[in-house]
């Protein structure tokens, strides 16, 4: 096991990693930006090192300063958390070149899975179904028709340089195909100075379901069940739960098996997440792999009893997994709500400032992960995630009631937060029924 780990992150995930290190009896070094100097979680580190100014590019993204901090503090590993440098393969290689273990997958696996096209090809080789698409630019009308026929309607035409919906057309049947193609090309040309467009199957009303995997350096890969992250707003996850209320146990085991196959095919050797879209008919499509720990990892911890951060650190230190697929028996139901310092009445505008009242929920079945406290000044310079409220109960209805109770107890003043919004979602009959798709929030609220 490592003797001392440097945490190259901040906020709730830094605190989460500190907690894991404490329980592993590993010393902790925290780097911080000038903006975070007075953050409470730093009190729990054995050592803290200022690495630069408030802007991430001046501190949490400064790989050389972080490695220098690991060197002067004689840390033997760096935990990158999520975001910042967590999926930067070059940083991982730099760490290892300096004899500091990067707590994450090997760089090659990270590079492959981090590249969308390469990950698709790994998935195809592992016979994991991907979202059918043109795999290239559409430049010939006959070919376009042929591909469209293969993919099936409805489909999407997307600008290669795309983003923000520009150069994007949903095509319902083949009579509209060429017209939509031309429109998309023109729009793409106007927006991105490129007429390059490609084609992809349009997954109708999908759920977002992801599988947690963990692998060691000895070839063992175990999945820890799935998380359902269908409640999103503008691609930001708001609520996650496990098990998914929208898939059958048959699909569940298919997804989990696919995730393990993919991880093995990519020689994966850390904690990671394989993301899928599942359509209303239960057909699933691999979309991407997150080669890091995720915000919503505690959902899985609550149903499996596995501490993912501790497990991730152990495998990074070369230990074999302490459990096998057989010993993992998920039980009960877990839900996570992200409490962001954002004003739901003002289009989720981030709010920052001094927290004058902060009473977190507690009692049975409730877990709160937060770096906030009464007297904490939330910085406007970083993301607005203030707390993760998690519950575990034997059944989903009980978990929903427990979450409603916990959200009701949570008092934060004077900052605006997403608490009132989350309470509305939890009380919504469609959420209770579980029969929702990724457009639920935007359609409903």
């Amino acid at each position, binding site marked *: 096991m490592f003797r*001392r780990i440097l945490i190259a992150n901040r906020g709730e995930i830094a605190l989460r990693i500190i907690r894991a290190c*404490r329980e592993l*009896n590993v*010393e*902790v070094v925290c*780097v911080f930006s*000038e903006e975070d*100097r*007075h*953050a*409470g979680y*730093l*009190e*729990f580190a*054995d*050592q*803290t*090192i*200022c*690495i*630069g100014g408030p802007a991430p590019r001046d*501190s949490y993204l400064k790989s*050389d*300063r972080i*490695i*220098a*901090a690991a*060197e*002067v*503090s*004689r840390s033997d590993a760096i935990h990158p958390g999520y975001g910042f440098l967590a999926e930067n393969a070059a940083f991982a290689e730099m760490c290892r070149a*300096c004899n500091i273990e990067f707590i994450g997958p090997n760089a090659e696996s990270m590079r492959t899975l981090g590249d969308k096209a390469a990950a698709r090809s790994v998935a195809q080789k592992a016979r994991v179904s991907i979202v059918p698409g043109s795999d290239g630019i559409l430049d010939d009308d006959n070919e376009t028709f042929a591909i469209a026929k293969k993919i099936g309607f409805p489909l999407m035409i997307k600008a290669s340089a795309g983003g923000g919906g520009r150069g994007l057309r949903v095509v319902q049947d083949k009579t509209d195909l060429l017209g939509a193609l031309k429109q998309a090309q023109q729009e793409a040309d106007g927006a991105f100075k490129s007429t390059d467009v490609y084609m992809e199957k349009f997954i109708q009303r999908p759920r977002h379901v992801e599988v947690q995997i963990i692998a060691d350096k000895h070839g063992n890969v175990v999945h820890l069940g799935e998380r359902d992250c269908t409640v999103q707003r503008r691609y930001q996850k708001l609520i996650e739960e496990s098990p998914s209320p929208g898939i059958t146990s048959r699909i569940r085991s298919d997804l989990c098996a696919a995730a393990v196959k993919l991880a093995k095919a990519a020689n994966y050797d850390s904690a990671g997440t394989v993301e899928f879209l599942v359509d209303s008919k239960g057909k699933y499509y691999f979309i991407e792999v997150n080669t890091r720990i995720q915000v919503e990892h505690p959902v899985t911890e609550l149903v499996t009893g596995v501490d993912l951060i501790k497990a991730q650190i152990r495998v990074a230190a070369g230990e074999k997994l302490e459990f096998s697929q057989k010993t993992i028996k998920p039980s009960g139901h877990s839900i996570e709500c992200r409490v962001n310092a954002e004003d739901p009445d003002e289009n989720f505008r981030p709010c920052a400032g*001094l927290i*004058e009242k902060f009473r977190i929920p507690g009692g049975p079945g409730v877990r709160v992960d937060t770096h906030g*406290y*009464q*007297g*904490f000044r939330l910085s406007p310079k970083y993301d607005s995630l203030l707390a993760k409220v998690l519950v575990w109960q034997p059944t989903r209805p009980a978990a929903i009631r427990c979450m409603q109770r916990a959200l009701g107890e949570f008092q934060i003043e004077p900052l605006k937060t997403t608490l009132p919004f989350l309470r509305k979602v939890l009380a919504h009959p469609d959420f209770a029924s579980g029969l929702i798709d990724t457009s639920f929030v935007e359609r409903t609220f």
Partner: protein
Amino acid sequence: MPDLDKIKQLVEMMVTNDLVELTVRDGDLDIKLKRPAPCSGEMIAVPAVRPDVMQLPPAALPPSENNSAADVVDEDKDLLEITSPMVGTFYAGADPESPPFAQVGTKISPSSVVCVLEAMKVFSEIKAELAGTIERVLVKNEQAVEFGQVLFLVRSD
């Protein structure tokens, strides 16, 4: 009516010195001034500066590495600071045999090299960027320094 100017001076004296009450009695003259006590509730709002709350086995860290810029006592507001622009190891001289670039009393100009910082095997000469006389050296040779840590206090000439 007493001289307003004198009262004004008394008030200034109060504000500058953070007095909360001032009474002057001189024969018939009796002046009493009061200012509010400093806000006592703010204590709650300001997080304490890292007390040793962890009761787990203490880290066996080299003691010299525990300094942080925040710990430096600001004794003299007139002194200028030379701070570390990076994270690394502080070297006072070009090599172990050489004398320090800057000691107490050393006159420096903006282009004077005051120390070398090493990070990831790269040694960088650090320039003063200001002029004056070194008044205090706040770090020891081979000590680890963080970003923004005060290395030298300089008296401007």
